[in-house]
């Protein structure tokens, strides 16, 4: 186990170096000057030179990257060019919003997708399966900016049960916090639950063809017990893999949801910073997403062993 962790740690460092270097290189390729962005249309040559010098923008690419990397090693991610807020502080402020959104959306989508997938697989081709398949396609083909607006219209405007937009921190008011995240989480969950349900259904159907399931049926086990106890776990490998990839992607990628619902999440911070050429915030965000990806997928790898003993024994 310790060896696995060490190997993963080495991979993590390598991935982070490559990803942050590429991100730094790519954002430097973008046209537009952060100093001009800060000054807007009102600066002159002297002001521009002053701001560029203050930000260290005249230094060579490698020197700036090395400076940033040196800071990261000592726990300093730098300070935003635009807002002057330390990058680590910005990310720490945004991360709880993103994590809450991710957790709640996964709970909702899995809470609905697992029963739906089981029900559909139990009688594949039946009426319920066809209804669930059609619903899944409907959810999959609806963009989040449409489903979000519709959910707001229904649950905030037509029946004012939930706030339409905005975010209340958990520490301020836990109930209001949950209410403020329910609609965005539902919007985010809608597309995911369709994917999860479809994936689980197809894997379950394959698993239900296995010999050990036939044996279980022959031994007189109930269909419910067979499904929940013997078929679900080995059928969840693909589902868990996709959840891992989803979580990694959503750490910085739930930006549309964050914009729609006015949530101050990590995705919105990164996208805004790209448009503002706020290099250090982008770098910090990329680092966070990369760490998130690696950590989540490491956890998923560990989970494989729990789900399927054959994998555990093989490793």
């Amino acid at each position, binding site marked *: 186990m310790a060896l696995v962790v060490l190997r993963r740690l080495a991979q993590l460092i390598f991935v982070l170096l490559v990803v942050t270097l590429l991100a730094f290189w790519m954002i430097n390729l*973008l*046209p*537009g*000057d*952060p100093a*001009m*962005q*800060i*000054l*807007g*249309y*009102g*600066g*002159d*040559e*002297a*002001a*521009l030179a*002053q*701001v560029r010098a203050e930000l260290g923008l005249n230094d060579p690419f490698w020197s700036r990257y090395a400076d940033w990397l040196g800071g990261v090693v000592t726990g300093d991610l730098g300070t935003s060019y*635009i*807002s*002057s*807020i330390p990058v680590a502080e*910005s990310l720490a*402020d*945004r991360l709880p919003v993103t994590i809450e959104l991710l957790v709640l959306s996964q709970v909702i989508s899995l809470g609905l997708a697992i029963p739906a997938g089981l029900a559909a697989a139990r009688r594949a081709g039946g009426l319920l399966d066809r209804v669930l398949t059609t619903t899944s396609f409907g959810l999959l083909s609806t963009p989040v900016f449409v489903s*979000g*607006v519709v959910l*707001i*219209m229904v649950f*905030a*405007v037509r029946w*004012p049960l939930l*706030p*339409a*937009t*905005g*975010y209340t*921190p958990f520490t301020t008011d836990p109930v209001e916090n949950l209410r403020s995240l329910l609609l965005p989480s539902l919007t985010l969950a809608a597309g995911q639950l369709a994917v999860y349900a479809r994936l689980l259904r197809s894997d379950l159907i394959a698993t239900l063809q296995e010999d050990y399931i036939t044996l279980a049926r022959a031994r007189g086990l109930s269909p419910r017990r067979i499904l929940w106890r013997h078929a679900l776990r080995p059928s969840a490998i693909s589902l868990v893999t996709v959840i891992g990839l989803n979580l990694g992607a959503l750490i910085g990628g739930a930006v549309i949801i964050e*914009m*729609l*619902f*006015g*949530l*101050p999440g990590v995705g*919105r*911070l990164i996208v*805004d910073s790209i*448009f*503002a*050429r706020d290099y250090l915030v982008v770098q910090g965000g990329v680092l966070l997403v990369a760490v998130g990806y690696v950590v989540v997928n490491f956890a998923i790898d560990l989970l494989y062993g729990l789900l399927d003993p054959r994998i555990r024994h093989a490793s």
Partner: protein
Amino acid sequence: MIHVTTRRRLRRAIPALSLTTCAILLAACSGGGSGSSNPTAPGGKAVPGGRLIYGLAADADGFNPNKDSFAAQTYAMAGTVIEALTAIDASGNWRPNLAESFKPAEKYTQWTIKIRKGITFSTGEPLDAEVVKANLDAQKASPLTAAVLAPLRGIEVLDPHTVQVHLTTPWVGFPATLAAQVGMIIPKSSLADPAKASRQPVGTGPFVFRSYTPDNRFVVAKNPKYWRKGLPYLDQIEFRILPDNQTRAQTLEAGGLTAMATLRDTDIVKFGKLADQGGYRMYRVAGMSVPEFAFMLNTAVAPLDDLRVRRALAHATDRQAFIKTLRSGLTKAADGPWSPDSKWYVPGGYPAYDLNQAKALVGEYEGEKGPIRIELLSVPDPTSMQNAELAQDMWRKAGMDVTIRQADQPDLIQRALTGNFSATNWTQFIAPDPDGEYSWLHSRFAAPVGGLSINMPRLKDPQLSAALDAGRGNPDEAARKRAYATVQQRLRDQLPFLWIDHLTTSAVITKPQVRGLDQYTLPDGSMGKALSGTPTHRFDQIWISR
């Protein structure tokens, strides 16, 4: 502000104007005021108390006037806490605010500013001449605002409540400039800690800062020690940052907001109908502070360095088609930077839509110099692209080869300032006084292509510049009107901009119980300017009807 629509764009855009735009106004008016508010607020008897939840499309970069670019949303939020030395009245003239009076001397190269006595910051620090000098010195030293205060030579403290400002050139409208960011006064403790001042604004204003969560909300509470007795009326204001136009409007409908700012014609149409039925109140910008939408042309590069091509473009551009198809018919066609309802406006002389005339000019030019190829820059949001595509279609019909190049805001800023463009979408000109546009149009600020040029069309027109100088240095209103009539005439002759419309779709929509937004008094008793720009307004005399 400059470039329309998405929140990031707004965030970066408005500062440009905000800095320079604080126009130059008529000199003469100065004087004191009682410092107390009108006991009977416009629109009925004001009721103290209540909370306003106000939706904004974008967040601020920071709230330190010496360090951060102030856009419309920054003025909304920080303006509740930090006050300026002057304010703009309903006629667009400057009035004393934190200052008690301004007295010009030496042909407007020297101004003596008397500061009101007895005002303190919410930290308890006194407002005095030393603080005002320290703020103006900091503004002069800041790369962000140094260009605006370029004529400022020095500041002298005459007594604890008087400073004297020395300028390098006559500047009639200097006090008007102090109504915006460069005139906003923060205490010495904030000057000493600029990073903290960026996030926790402190001022003398009607409200005191309570909390700020970036990209989420900014909360202020009533300042019980505010120097204008009886103000403000509201107990609390919560600004919510909601970047999506659709969901911001839905939040207002759902009751999550009591007011919101918008630039969308669809909001004007929808809430306008509801306002007619009493469901909402709507306030739209008017007069000099209305932004104009135009296409800015680079007059320093071929083929747009040839006036015939610029005239061909003007003749080929059907302004009514823009208004009908992209503004729901809500705006009026523009023929210059100032609205017809402004006292500075003079009509006439702008090329009419005439496709045949455009084709003839194109043929004449191409016969001499070859095909006309124009690259039109646009930020990649849908609204801006619709404007660009409509223009492309019109200009192609006149026989010109027009391509659209998408550029995000930082790229566009760089291209515009360094002259690396032919034509671009443009929204600007919200100064309440025409002198506010001085730097954008004067040939002194036009650098060769490659250099940094605030005069972005790079038009060097001696008559235009002379008229701008006359408007800046002469206190006589009739003389100024003549000067700015010449400015408008030269802009119509030389066409550095193809004017499209006055964007009166900039508005604030509120629930019906929100009152006093458009009518308020300044410390000297005069009525203040209602909405301006994209849009901004004051909050100290807003009240909630019960």
